[in-house]
């Protein structure tokens, strides 16, 4: 971990530049450019709200807020991980020629999606305003699950980026796992809808604590139990330690396999 902070300190300018490059390229030659970061979650919300609130009649008040409060962090996780898993392989040509610190690539992938996530909070704020949603003091709690989320995404990103170098199947597997994970996490529904005997599935899911933290604070205006708060950050730290360990153990081999 000490090594990681040293790498970040030495390369923070490079990580920033790579992340901004990522965003810049993502929206290059598109008429709306950065606006897509704002439009995407809005359109996603409209679709899901129509499906679940109108067609399937989930009886949740202000479903849009309910949904966005967990959907936005989820999107950050799934996009961040999808970008990170490819980050080493995608920079193969560079890594074969220049001795550059390898951990910067997954970190930049997650950072660019973090910026995107922070931008997507703007449409959330708009929705709150339009619905005249009451202000909650609990909103100040949001940085806690956010920290857990960043660490968790980064940890999974390190692990998958390394694994993908040796087995390209990993990037395909990640996509499948992500879509299953989406439905097994409290994003479009709340945990109360889950029968008691299946609850254990969610208790094992570190993301559930994180997403729940976001939703409790933003939508319900409540704080989670201390245990749940600790678990949401602990899950992130654990993923980070394990993911980075695997990455470091293998990074010297990357160049021969990409």
């Amino acid at each position: 971990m000490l090594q990681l902070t040293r790498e970040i300190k030495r390369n923070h300018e490079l990580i920033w530049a790579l992340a901004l490059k990522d965003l810049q390229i993502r929206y290059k030659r598109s008429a709306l450019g950065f606006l897509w970061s704002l439009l995407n979650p809005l359109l996603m919300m409209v679709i899901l709200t129509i499906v679940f609130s109108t067609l399937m009649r989930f009886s949740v008040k202000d479903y849009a807020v309910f949904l966005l409060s967990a959907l936005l962090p989820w999107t950050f996780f799934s996009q961040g991980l999808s970008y990170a898993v490819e980050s080493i392989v995608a920079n193969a040509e560079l890594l074969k020629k220049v001795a550059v610190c390898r951990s910067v690539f997954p970190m930049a992938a997650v950072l660019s999606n973090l910026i995107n996530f922070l931008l997507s909070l703007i449409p959330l704020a708009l929705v709150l305003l339009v619905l005249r949603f009451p202000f909650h003091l609990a909103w100040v709690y949001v940085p806690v699950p956010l920290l857990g989320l960043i660490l968790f995404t980064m940890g999974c990103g390190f692990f998958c980026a390394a694994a993908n170098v040796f087995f390209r199947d990993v990037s395909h597997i990640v996509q499948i796992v992500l879509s299953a994970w989406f439905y097994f996490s409290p994003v479009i529904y709340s945990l109360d809808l889950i029968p008691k005997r299946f609850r254990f599935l969610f208790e094992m899911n570190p993301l559930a604590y994180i997403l729940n933290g976001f939703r409790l604070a933003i939508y319900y205006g409540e704080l989670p139990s201390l245990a749940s708060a600790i678990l949401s950050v602990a899950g992130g730290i654990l993923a980070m330690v394990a993911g980075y360990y695997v990455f470091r153990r293998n990074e010297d081999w990357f160049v021969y396999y990409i």
Partner: protein
Amino acid sequence: MASCRVRFENVTQRFRVIQERPDTLREAFTKMFRHGSRVFDFDALRGISFTIGDGETIGIVGRNGSGKSTILKIIAGVYHSTSGRVEVWGRVAPLIELGAGFHGDLTGRENIVLNGLLLGLSRREITAREDRITSFADLGDFIDSPVKQYSSGMYMRLGFAVATEVDPDILLIDEILSVGDAEFQRRCVTRIEDFRQRGKTIVVVSHSVGTIQELCPRTIFLEGGRIAADGPTDEVLAKYSKALEGPREAPRLIQEGARSGR
């Protein structure tokens, strides 16, 4: 040659090589689903030892696949030798393949910043060098166009301009002086001369005997991953050209790769 910049001690570099020559129709069929059917080892360098002193300009010659570029990549820190000891003192600028890390959608100017950061400069150092880089690359208005619209020569010019502005202690040059037009080549040579006069260490890999003769007092001749000759350029080049007349030993793979970690 008081202090030493690069020291190789009995360095071996082993690569995994996958052979995909199907022996049977069934193998050809299953190969589509199964990767890396047979793995062999290939030693690109076999127990090489040499030192490069501070301020030395050294040439490396040899046929294709003799290990020249592998040596440069080990010095640059891209490869970690399989066995043996490698020591490198000082900042290395790899002119191994120019423009590695350029992104086609970014403009020349944006790529200068990104490439500079990748080569280990800070943003402040890059800003300070930007004017010199753009004027050396001499791309005119194209500097603000996406590099995917550059000609290959323009691409190389920008790459050379960035890499040599890193102000390295050790400059690695791999067969790049053949790019660009005559005028740009001349400026590259001038710049390398300039490096030399400032007491920098330079390693040149080239197939051009003329380039080596012009730049390097000392030369290493590699053959099949071993040092065949190391000494004054004239003597080594004489051996090299003699060897070129002889038959070439085709690269051979060794044993089924079961050993060594991964």
